[in-house]
């Protein structure tokens, strides 16, 4: 692979690398004939970042042996590799580079000797190398050869659900103004979380109290209300939606967007489904995925159940009849959506496990094509919920899981609601208690009420345990 960056393209490229380096240590390179992608995942696999540059971004770009031109109809060769972000960044971020470099050539040399006429010493040994050749003023040439490792676990994000997605568009400056009220303590371990509550016309941002460090030093709790008008686009699927996510990677994203003066496009679905951020620039397509966590509660130990309570209370605070009547519908819908996502995830995972040979041809964000048949299958397959179990967090209190009784209740409904999680079940039953008119909606048959003791359900946790599942998994584990 050979790619040439001129001085004007080098700057955004370096900024991208800076951002990547704040996400994760290892940089995965994926080059196809049409695009050049750099991606990274943080160590806990809760954040993913990918920059995809079209070939127009480069002044010269070719993949494959320099002499051979690949037919366009072919899939074309792909080049992959992995290296430490830092090692590449430290070359390009050096203060002299900005001043003096006129042109930067990136080339990947395969370990296998190839007919490269550049210079003889370019190919030595069996290791692949990323060669960064900086052409500076006055004809000074600096050549850095970095060891390129073979790509190990290739990570790619799942895709967001399209139907219940919330969209936000906001400029980096506005976002920075919000975030900067939440101080990030110095230190490597400090990674505060912010809790975002997207309401009808206001966004509440507050520090997530559980992000207190072990010594309890972070005594400061900040809460901020922002008018939705601050956002260029404010389209929340269901208000209020509350999500919480960590700041570290988010800050890196903002910093990048700010340096490029590009707006951020935020998409999210469930409170625990990952947050997707797109930044679109010239010839570059940037995707950030940050996993969010469940809404926190006020008290620590029974975090999950209190979280559910908080949620409920919020709902009660917005007594809009329309929403209330719609709610059970939504719950069902959401269940479906969740199970789709679930099935999707498990499907894509098993798929990836089964077919590792895809490694070569799958594009960096290998968008798992959603199997359309899955929702139907899913409702009949009792296996599906259990197959997704391994993704559950280890430390969820028992109460958050659906009890066997609850599951039995669901099965007995005969509605194919087996995948409904505890929260939704509770909500459904709860709604029943409030005597919401269910006519026209998928009314649970009386059997539910009869077979089940509502008092029993009363204390069931309303947390969907599946919500904690990661937004993306390794596609190739070798």
């Amino acid at each position, binding site marked *: 692979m050979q790619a040439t960056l001129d001085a004007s393209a080098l700057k955004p490229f370096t900024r991208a690398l800076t951002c990547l380096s704040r996400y994760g240590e290892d940089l995965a390179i994926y080059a196809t004939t049409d695009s050049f992608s750099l991606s990274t995942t943080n160590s806990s696999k809760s954040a993913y970042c990918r920059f995809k540059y079209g070939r127009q971004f480069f002044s010269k770009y070719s993949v494959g042996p320099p002499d051979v031109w690949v037919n366009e109809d072919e899939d074309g060769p792909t080049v992959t590799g992995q290296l430490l972000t830092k090692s590449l960044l430290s070359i390009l971020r*050096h203060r*002299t580079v900005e001043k003096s470099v006129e042109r930067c050539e990136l080339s990947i040399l395969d370990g296998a000797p190839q007919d490269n006429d550049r210079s003889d010493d370019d190919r030595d040994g069996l290791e692949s190398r990323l060669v960064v050749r900086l052409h500076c003023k006055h*004809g000074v040439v*600096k050549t850095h*050869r970095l060891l390129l490792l073979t790509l190990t676990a290739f990570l790619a994000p799942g895709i967001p659900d399209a139907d219940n997605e919330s969209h936000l568009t906001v400029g980096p400056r506005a976002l920075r103004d919000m975030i900067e009220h939440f101080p990030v303590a110095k230190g490597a371990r400090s990674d505060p979380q912010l809790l975002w509550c997207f309401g009808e016309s206001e966004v509440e941002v507050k520090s997530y109290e559980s992000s207190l460090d072990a010594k309890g030093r972070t005594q400061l709790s900040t809460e901020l209300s922002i008018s939705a008008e601050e956002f260029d686009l404010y389209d929340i699927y269901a208000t209020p939606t509350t999500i919480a996510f960590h700041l570290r990677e988010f800050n890196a994203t903002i910093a990048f967007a700010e340096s490029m003066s590009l707006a951020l496009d935020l998409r999210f679905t469930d409170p625990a489904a990952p947050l997707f951020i797109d930044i679109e620039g010239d010839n570059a397509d940037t995707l950030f995925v940050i996993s969010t966590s469940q809404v926190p509660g006020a008290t620590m130990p029974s975090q999950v159940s209190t979280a559910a309570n908080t949620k409920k209370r919020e709902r009660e605070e917005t007594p809009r009849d329309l929403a209330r009547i719609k709610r059970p519908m939504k719950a069902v819908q959401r269940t479906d959506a969740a199970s789709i996502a679930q099935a999707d995830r498990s499907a894509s995972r098993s798929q990836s496990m089964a077919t590792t040979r895809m490694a070569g041809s799958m594009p960096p964000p290998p968008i798992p094509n959603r199997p359309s048949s899955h929702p139907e299958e899913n409702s009949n397959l009792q296996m599906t919920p259990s197959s997704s179990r391994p993704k559950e967090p280890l430390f969820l209190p028992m109460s958050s899981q659906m009890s066997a009784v609850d599951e039995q209740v669901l099965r007995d409904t005969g509605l194919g609601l087996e995948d409904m999680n505890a929260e939704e079940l509770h909500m459904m039953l709860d709604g029943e208690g409030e005597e919401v008119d269910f006519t026209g909606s998928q009314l649970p048959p009386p059997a539910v009420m009869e077979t089940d003791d509502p008092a029993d359900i009363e204390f069931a946790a309303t947390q969907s345990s599946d919500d904690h599942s990661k937004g993306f998994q390794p596609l190739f584990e070798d």
Partner: protein
Amino acid sequence: MSNDDDEVQQPPVLKASVNDVRHFASLLRGVNFVNRATVTIAKTGFVVIVEEARTLLGTAYIFANTFDEYTYHSETPPAPQNSQDSDGDEDDNSAFEIPLNTLIECLNIFGTAGSSGSGAGAGNATSKYKKWKRPGEDSEPEGDDDDRGWRSSNGGSGARGIDQYFGNTEKGTGMRMSYAGSGFPLTLLIAEDAAGPTTTCEITTYEAEPHLQLPFESDQTVLKIILKSSWLRDALSELDPSCDKLTIIGNPPPPIVNGKQRQQPRAPPMLRIQAAGTFGSTEMDYPNDRDVLETFECTRHVSFSYRFGHISRTLRALQSSAKTSLRIDDEGLLSLQFLMPSPKSKTEGGADAFIEFRCLALDDELV
């Protein structure tokens, strides 16, 4: 001990003063990679020598005109003191060893000696340091100093001239240094301001021991390059610190054809600096461009390797230097001379100081 008052019978061996220690401090800092330094004092100035691993020799040549006042009285003829230095009597100079770090720290006791890498001419790099309050900005900094030599040699006009040149009202930290002779400490009197506090430091000196000698035979030179220090500085600072070995490769310039130097596209570069580290290797090629290499003399293909850890010792001196002369003799001995521009040279014609590093090549490359 106050030599200034008790010097009835014997003048001190060295008396030097300067009204701004920054340049002096930056020269010392350039060779501050090993704590124990040998200072050799002569009439024209003094030389600070440090060595490391019997391979690297760093020498700072600080000439008398770096100081506002510089007097040297040979301690040999009039009154031989306790003991003579081994090399003291031949060239009429005296030598002692001193902890260099301590000396630099003393000079920077007010935080005003500057730790900037851009030399003394780069304005005030220490402005963020809180200064002692000055009652009157116009008062002469040395006004109350009890030393006559100081005042006479450095009138207010001289100091003003420099300050005007720098374009700021800040006056540097003044220093007066004296060394009574072998066995005596080096005494520093440092004052930031006439009205401010004064510090007297006495730094124990040690008897000089013979140090590494790396004579450079200039007629054996195989590669001689003069280039702007910034080129070399950038090259060295861009190298990965994990690099172990640095190789300097020189190739003779291509033959001149038709009065014009033809640079063949595949011609080996004139100067290549290469290094290999854990994450990869780096090569930097420099063409024979007058903007890059002011002088390039190379008789044959030259390739010598040096320990990168040693070469990187030069970075601190490189940062404040203007030009570099790089020479390699046929045995691979590397001589790097850095021209350290004096802030005075522009106004008063003070000579620039030099820092020189000499480094032996790694053995395996010699064969």
